[in-house]
């Protein structure tokens, strides 16, 4: 077993373990911290796939932006565990688990039937920023414009939605 395979198995096991931690934690803050480690392990896997720029973007966008946003919301609305209603639809987790096993079996069957493909060892040396940047800003410039519009609309929508409604005492008397 090569060094690369051992490294992949270790990082993959850590990734799966933290994913399980996100789902099973009782306290929302613990879930968010598990999510942070999970995103970091995925960034390491991106580096092993020759996608260095996307690994950096993963750390910046997900670990630096999204997890921090989730932690801010947890601080705003509190993180008391709420799944304490005894006997309230207690079969739901088992139904979810059964559906998940069925889905995993289907996906694993599809992957195992895939014919083995040989990979060029120099494949996608273009994960480095300069090649990916030329690719994005020359052939896919429309996608960049659309993403900009999407982010602007999401920003305005989030501002509008999370605005505190005007109460009676602030009205002009």
């Amino acid at each position: 077993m090569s060094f690369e395979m051992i490294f992949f198995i270790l990082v993959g096991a850590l990734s799966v373990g933290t994913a399980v931690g996100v789902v099973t934690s009782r306290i929302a803050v613990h879930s968010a911290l598990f999510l942070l480690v999970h995103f970091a392990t995925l960034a390491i896997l991106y580096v092993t796939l020759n996608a260095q720029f996307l690994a950096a973007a993963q750390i910046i966008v997900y670990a630096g932006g999204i997890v921090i946003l989730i932690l801010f919301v947890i601080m705003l609305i509190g993180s008391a565990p709420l799944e304490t209603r005894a006997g309230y639809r207690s079969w739901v987790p088992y139904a979810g688990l059964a559906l998940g096993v069925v889905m995993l079996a289907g996906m694993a069957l599809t992957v195992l039937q895939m014919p083995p493909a040989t990979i060029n060892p120099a494949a996608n040396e273009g994960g480095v920023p300069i090649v990916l940047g030329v690719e994005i800003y020359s052939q896919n410039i429309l996608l960049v414009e659309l993403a900009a519009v999407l982010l602007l609309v999401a920003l305005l929508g989030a501002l509008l939605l999370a605005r505190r409604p005007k109460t009676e005492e602030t009205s002009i008397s």
Partner: protein
Amino acid sequence: MVPTGYYLILSAIIFTIGAVGVLSRRNALIIIMCVEMMLNSVNLTLIAFARQWDNLNGQVFVFMVMAVAAAEVAVGLAILIAHFNLSKSTNIDDVNVMKW
């Protein structure tokens, strides 16, 4: 060189864990986190295929998925806060304002 199939299996496992979390948890915050996990596992699949076929379009697609995920989590958390101001609860079973 780790074969592509290993990455696909890992991605399938993470996607399934996220789907089980969406189906079985009742805290809306944790459901949003699980949706992010599912998006990330699909990103891993796209990058693995981008390496296998030596084609950068997969990585460009992952870039766009990241933009959409950032927009989605911002709007989702804003809706969560708006609903929390209304009902003082993050339980997904209490979200029935639009039901009649």
